[in-house]
């Protein structure tokens, strides 16, 4: 236990305390001296940029949750059905989907930057060429760029949702479906009245984990849009990085980091409640 506690103190508790401390100073990365003030907090919270960043982050997170849950569930349902009916191909599909998840985030951004290349030889533009004239500005207009980072994030994260949902589906007893069939329920009815309620706790856990991983994403965004055009894809994590390491304002970055800390705290409490109600803790 001692090694763990040392690591936690040195690399989590102390930094968290320091972040809190810097957030009430006017510290900068360039000069060593600083004084305590609440002005930084006031400045950051009254800056309209913050609300723009939060709005973009919220869209990024919510869209990722919706798409990853649905896609993950669809693939998991297919995989589960393939398992029960002993259809071949399940492990192959799972490997492909998970490959997108295990690769480094930066490489995911690079892959999508290549796919969404705005010239006519980019894959996405080749595909839309048959139905539409001209090239689509996937990365250089604000709304399209936001959509593009969402697609790339969903491409990355669906695998994890699929794995969780698939594990959840396997725990639903077959008898429930058999009983429903005896009662004359249709496939769709069994899905709404058995599958979804039985999966509910796992879906909730999944929502929390997607929120966390999406909130902390900025590796994938750098090679894809770099936060642009303008600030159209500058999510909270990327904003925090830019404020500290490009604008050198340690104090303002610390305020943003405090906001990130608070969000993860709230999410952890939600996760804990879910695990408790599942009897896992």
């Amino acid at each position, binding site marked *: *236990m001692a*090694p*763990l506690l040392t690591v*936690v103190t*040195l*690399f*989590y508790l102390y*930094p*968290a305390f*320091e972040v809190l401390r810097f957030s009430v100073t006017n510290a900068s990365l360039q000069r060593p001296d600083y004084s305590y003030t609440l002005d930084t907090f006031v400045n950051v919270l009254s800056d309209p940029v913050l609300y723009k960043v939060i709005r973009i982050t919220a869209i990024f997170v919510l869209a990722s949750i919706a798409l990853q849950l649905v896609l993950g569930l669809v*693939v998991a*349902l*297919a995989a589960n*059905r*393939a398992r029960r*009916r002993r*259809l071949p*191909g399940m492990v192959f*599909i799972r490997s492909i*989907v*998970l*490959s*997108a998840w*295990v*690769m*480094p985030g*930066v*490489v995911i951004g*690079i*892959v999508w*930057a*290549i*796919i969404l290349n705005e*010239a*006519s*030889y980019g*894959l996405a533009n080749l595909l839309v060429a048959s139905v539409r004239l001209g090239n689509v500005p996937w990365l250089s207009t604000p709304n399209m760029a936001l959509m593009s980072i969402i697609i790339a994030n969903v*491409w990355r994260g669906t695998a994890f949702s699929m794995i969780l949902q698939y*594990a*959840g589906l396997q725990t639903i007893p077959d008898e429930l479906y058999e009983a429903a069939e005896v009662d004359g329920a249709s*496939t769709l009815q069994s899905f709404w009245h058995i599958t979804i309620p039985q999966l509910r706790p796992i879906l909730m*856990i999944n929502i929390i984990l997607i929120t*966390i991983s999406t909130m*902390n994403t*900025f*590796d994938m965004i*750098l090679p894809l849009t770099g936060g642009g055009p303008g600030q159209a894809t500058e999510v909270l994590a990327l904003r925090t990085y830019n404020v500290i*390491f490009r604008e050198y304002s*340690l104090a303002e970055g*610390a305020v943003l*980091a405090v906001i*990130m*800390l608070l969000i*993860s*705290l709230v999410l*952890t409490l939600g996760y*804990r409640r879910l695990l408790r109600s*599942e009897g*896992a*803790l």
Partner: protein
Amino acid sequence: MRSRKIRGRIGDLLTYLVFVAALVFFGGPLLWVLSLSIRTPQEVYITSLRLIPETPTLENYTEVLYTAQFTIFLTNSLKLAVAGSVGAMVVAAPAAYAFSRLNFRGNNALLIGVLALQMISPLVVIIPLYRYFARLNLLDSHFSTSMVYIAILVPLATWMLKGFFDGIPLDLDDAAMVDGCTRFGAFRRVTLPLILPGLTSVFVLMAIIAWGEFTVPYILLSEPSLLPISVGILNFQGNYAETSQQVVAAGGVLAMLPAIATFIILQRFIVRALTSGAIKG
């Protein structure tokens, strides 16, 4: 009976439709990047969907490996990933054992604390660490960077390993202690060999995560000869992207290959580790 059979057929058809769609969406981008990586510069600009180029070439790979320092980046990634995941296991295994076996005061509270740490973005801890590493002259050092890798991997490793320890009956180490083993002896001789599959899968998963780690080296390392592939490839893309996509694609393939290959070989274990970590806790 007949309608049931037809329903089954339709279900199988739908299952495979989902599989094909998943294959195209998740595998398509990977195939495209792979295809670009073996094209000559002229063939990058063709506007057709042909995957296999007329004159396939490995020149992009030799260029990336020999002129663009990728050999150094890949070696650095390997070093950091191994140091980080070995360290994380050393710190996490005894702690996970204690969480699973000893009923000490505050056990649960601490465990939730560990869970909370897992939710914190590496960006938040790295901000103050950057400052104090700068003062201690520990920037641009693989030693300090791998320490932070360990810290970032430890919460998830502890959480997952605890799940594996929980799966081993308590009676076994009690029996060993009755037979004269010390508690540590019971851990080393009885429990440890039993959880070896679990240890291996958590270790591999940690190594894959460390391979893709971006935030920590991006902030702590700037000397090009020390960079891991995740950071190296971002700089590389910045310099090359517009002029030679095929070379960037080759770099991307090299960066993702180790993670994907390791994963596919060991996926059965890893998938189990993933689900037990997220659901069972």
